[in-house]
C-alpha cells in the first residue's frame, strides 16, 4: 500500500502490535487530565479513524465497540454512548477509505473532519435526547483540531511501514 495514491513509495505491511500499541497510547492520552482543556481532540476516535481508513480489515467495528465501552466507563458517561458513535465512525471510514486515501494528505484531513464531527454530534444528540445539558460549542472544537493533526498523525503512525527511499541496485526485483 502507498501513503497516498500519488505517492510512488510502497509501504511495508503493518504490524498488528503497532496498531494495538497506538490504540492503547490513544486511550492513555484520553485519560490525561488535559482532556478537560477546550479543543483537545478525542484521541481514540482519531487513531481509530486512522486505522479503519488504512486497515479496515484489521481494525473494524468490533474494536470500535470495545474501545467505546472502555471510554464510556472511563468517562463516567452512559454505557453505549461512545460505543455507538465509534461503531458508526468505523463503518463510515471503512466504507469511504478508498475515496479518502485517493486524496493528498491535506485534503484527506478535510474528508476526515465531517466523520469526526459526526461522532461528536452523535454523542451530543444521544445525551441531549435523554435530557443532559448542552455542553457548549467548545465540545465541537475537538474534531477541528483533530483534523489538523491528521497530517502529522499519518506521518507518525506510518513510520514503521516506510522503507528506505534509495533502492538497492542489486535487488532481484
Amino acid at each position, binding site marked *: 500500500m502507498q501513503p497516498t495514491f500519488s505517492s510512488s513509495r510502497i509501504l511495508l505491511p503493518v504490524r498488528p502490535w503497532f496498531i494495538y500499541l497506538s490504540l492503547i497510547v490513544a486511550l492513555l492520552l484520553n*485519560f*490525561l487530565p488535559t482532556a478537560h482543556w477546550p479543543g483537545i481532540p478525542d484521541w481514540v476516535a482519531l487513531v481509530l479513524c486512522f486505522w479503519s481508513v488504512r486497515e*479496515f480489515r484489521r481494525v473494524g467495528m468490533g474494536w470500535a*465497540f470495545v474501545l467505546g465501552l472502555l471510554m464510556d466507563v472511563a468517562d463516567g458517561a*452512559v454505557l*453505549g454512548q461512545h460505543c455507538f458513535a465509534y*461503531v458508526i465512525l468505523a463503518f463510515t471510514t471503512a466504507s469511504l477509505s478508498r475515496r479518502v486515501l485517493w486524496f493528498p494528505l491535506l485534503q484527506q484531513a478535510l474528508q476526515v473532519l465531517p466523520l469526526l464531527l459526526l461522532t461528536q454530534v452523535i454523542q451530543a444528540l444521544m445525551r441531549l435526547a435523554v435530557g443532559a445539558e448542552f455542553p457548549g460549542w467548545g465540545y465541537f472544537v475537538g474534531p477541528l483540531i483533530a483534523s489538523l493533526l491528521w497530517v502529522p498523525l499519518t506521518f507518525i503512525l506510518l513510520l514503521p511501514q516506510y522503507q528506505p527511499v534509495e533502492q538497492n541496485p542489486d535487488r532481484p526485483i
Partner: protein
Amino acid sequence: MAGFDHAPPPFFKRGPAPLALLTFYTLLSLAIFVVDLRFRGLDLLRQSVALVVDPVQRVAQTPGSLVDYARNYLQGMQSLQRDNDELRHAKLSTAPNLLRLEQLEAENDRLRKLLVVNEREKAKGQVAQILYTARDPFSRKVIVDKGQQSGIVAGQPAIDEAGVVGQVTRVFPFSAEITLISDKDQAVPVQIVRTGQRSVVFGLGNGQLELRYMPANADVQVGDVLVTSGLDSVYLQGYPVAKVVNIERDSAYSFARIFSEPIAGVENFGEVMVLDPRQPLPPAPPAAKGRGSDGSDKPGLRPKKKRAARGN
C-alpha cells in the same frame, strides 16, 4: 461502500458482511445505552470494566498531581507560616462557640429526652480525596479515592467545610463517583433559613441551582441561605447548600424563578467528607383523611409537571 466493494471476490472467508456487523453493533450499543440509563442494570459490567480502566486512569493522572505536589512543595515557608497563623487565629476565634457546643449538645439531648422527642442524628463519615473530575462534558461528577473497599455505598451525601457538595451515585471497588449538586436535575431537599420554608433545589447544569415550584409571591429574598431540610432519608438537617442570587418574578407564570449558587466549593479540588448513610426514618404515620395534604398538594400537582417539562 466503495471500500468494501473493491475487496477481493467473496470466495475468501472474511466473516459477516459489514452491514450485518453494523446493524449488530449499533443495536447492541443502543440496547446497553437504554438499559444503563433507564434500568441501571449494567453496574456489574461497569464495575468489572472499571477494575481494568481505573488503575490506568490513576496512572494517567499522576503527571498532573506531581505538578500540584511540586507547586505545593515550592510554595515556601512563608505562605505555610501565614496559613498556620490564620488557622490558629481561626481556631481561637471559633473556640468560644466550639467549647460550648459539646455542652449545648448534651443539654439538647437531655431536653429532648425530657420532651420525649427523638434524638438528632450525629454526623459521621470518612474523608475522601477527589482524584479527578469525570471526563463526561454532559454531567458534573468527580471521582474520589474511596470505594466499596471502604464501605461506601451509593446514596451517601458528600460535604466539604462549607456545605453540601453532592451525593455518591456509583461505587467501584476502589473509587466512587460523586454527582455534584450543580449537575442537571440533581435534587436536594432544602429549607430557607430565614423563613423555615421547605422546598427542593435542582441543579441547572451551568453551575447554578434553581429553587423550583415556589409561588410567584413567595417570601424569598436575594441572599437567603438554603440548608438541607433533612426530610429525605439522605441528607442530615442543617447543612448549607446554596445562597439565593437572583429572583425573577413573572406574573405570567405561577412560579417564581429563583436562582442560587452553591455555598460549598463544588467545583474545587481537594477533600470531601462522605457522610455515613442515615439511620432509617421512623415509619410514616397512616395517611390523614381529607386534611392538610389534600388541600395544598393536589391542585399543585398538574402545573408542577407542566413546568418541569417546559423548564427542561
